[in-house]
């Protein structure tokens, strides 16, 4: 039954005014533009992955195990051609970055966020850390060269053995340090004030509050940031060139977990990829080898990112 206040005519008018009248062309257009942005990105990525995967089949499809076990060679047809040395370098660079950059970066972030007074000096320091995160990686390579190879400071070259996986790892650890500090700092800032107050309210000291509330709550965020920065370190080539990564004439293959070779001459996956791509001009077979090395590097990075996601989900479940 229709109320007397709304007669049939005005009801029709109201219905007409709220009914959909026309197609929203602008809205549709906007949506299509956004979709095509996404499509372009996905298409580029797909082309990259597909070409690399297709190119790599010559090596990975026919002699996967030999390729993973092999060494740097001057001819692509050499049956002992492979990337074992590159994997060794990249694996240990990742480990050194984790061991050096994570504790130092997280520690610095804890100090900056939780202890340091908020004043002009700390604001200045923070801005500069952010700037450092944007400094081109080749500049860090120069730092590594001066610090770890030329022995201009502290004679560190004797410790690292000059051009070595250790030097490369330390250089890349310095490279990602600002990123680790920034992402950890952001994770600390996201810890709710209520949790901090709750801990202080029952008589926790600052250290206890940080250990029992801030660090566990921030763990997923720290983890994501640090592992992503590790993935970045593993993909860097320029700084490694400056600290003397080589593209041949390496000695015996060290075992993957043989830390005795850390201060020997070294190479890493991005270097191998670059070198083989350059050589593919004179020796076409290196195209397949480079593509195969790219696939190995991508799998390596993918594994790291998956580990980051798995660990983050576990920590997040823990914090509820």
């Amino acid at each position: 039954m229709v109320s007397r206040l709304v007669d049939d005519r005005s009801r029709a008018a109201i219905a007409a005014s709220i009914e959909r009248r026309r197609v929203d062309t602008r809205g549709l257009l906007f949506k299509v533009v956004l979709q095509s942005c996404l499509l372009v990105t996905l298409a580029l990525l797909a082309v990259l992955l597909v070409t690399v995967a297709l190119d790599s089949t010559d090596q990975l499809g026919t002699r996967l195990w030999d390729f993973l076990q092999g060494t740097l060679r001057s001819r692509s047809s050499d049956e002992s051609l492979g990337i074992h040395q590159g994997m060794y370098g990249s694996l240990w660079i990742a480990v050194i970055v984790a061991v050096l950059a994570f504790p130092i970066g997280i520690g610095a972030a804890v100090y900056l966020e939780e202890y340091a007074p908020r004043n002009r000096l700390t604001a200045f320091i923070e801005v500069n850390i952010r700037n450092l995160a944007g400094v081109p990686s080749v500049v860090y390579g120069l730092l590594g060269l001066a610090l770890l190879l030329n022995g201009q400071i502290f004679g560190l070259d004797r410790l690292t053995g000059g051009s070595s996986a250790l030097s490369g790892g330390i250089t890349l650890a310095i490279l990602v340090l600002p990123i680790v500090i920034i992402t950890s700092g952001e994770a600390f800032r996201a810890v709710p004030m209520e949790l901090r107050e709750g801990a202080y309210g029952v008589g926790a000291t600052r250290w206890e509050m940080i250990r029992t509330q801030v660090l566990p709550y921030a763990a997923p965020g720290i983890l994501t940031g640090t592992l992503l920065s590790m993935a970045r370190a593993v993909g860097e080539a320029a700084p490694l060139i400056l600290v003397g990564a080589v593209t041949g004439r390496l000695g015996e293959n060290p075992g993957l977990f043989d830390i005795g070779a850390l201060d020997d001459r070294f190479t890493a996956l991005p270097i191998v990829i670059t070198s083989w791509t350059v050589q593919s001009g004179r020796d076409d077979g290196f195209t397949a080898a480079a593509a195969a090395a790219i696939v190995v590097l991508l799998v390596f990075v993918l594994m790291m990112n998956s580990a980051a996601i798995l660990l983050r989900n576990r920590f997040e479940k823990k914090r509820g």
Partner: protein
Amino acid sequence: MSMTDEAPRVIDRMAATAGEASPEQAMPAPAAERDVVFQSRDVNVYYGSFRAVRDVTFTVPKNEIMALIGPSGCGKSTVLRCYNRMNDLIKDARVTGAITYRGTDLYDERVDPVEVRRRIGMVFQKPNPFPKSIFDNVAYGPRVAGRKKDLDDIVENSLRKAALWDEVSDRLKDSALGLSGGQQQRLCIARAIAVGPDVLLMDEPCSALDPIATARIEDLMQEIKQDYTIMIVTHNMQQAARVSDTTAFFTADVRSENDTRTGILVEVDTTQKIFSNPSDERTENYVTGRFG
């Protein structure tokens, strides 16, 4: 950085340690005759150069519930947070004047704020359980105090006192975040009690709760007041009237020329007197609903 490092403070230590009110600030008779837990005198709280609270002086008697009421922005919570040095955590916050706890100046430089907070517990506006198990929440305080033995007993007793034991005894290992809002707030009370405090400060503990959960917290306050002295900040005048023995009414002194609000204490008296026959007109306007 603790406030004692940097903040210049003016403390009238003679008056602070004397522990008795001066004639012009005489407290209502019943309070003055009992044991006094807190005595504040001319307390001012500054955030930077902004004065948030001006010249607050009153005493808190033992084993009573004192309510701090007043309109929003009148500094009730700020005042409450002076009593367990919680304002230390706010950068630029500065407290002048004197607050004594059982005769000792809380802001004396020899006083450790961590120890203060173990004796003077706090329950916050929003229930803030830690993202841990129910057991670990209650055991948190004793653990940071270095206690390792008898945690089971402490947790059970605290949960019983907070009237939560029957609801959670079979799921102590479950996450505290799975509890309802009212249960979470009682858990926070249990967590505060577990440290063995002398005083409980409650900062609008029921503002996020429904009426049933609120009633349970109010009943709980009545039950535990024989063991504790309680100060509660509340927006809810009925709540103050129901639960408290004494009431302090605050209001905001608004300076229109620079748009600042400074909290001032209008009057302190027995709750019955504040709500039936207050001495100040502003109190009367507020409790009768004509203002605020």
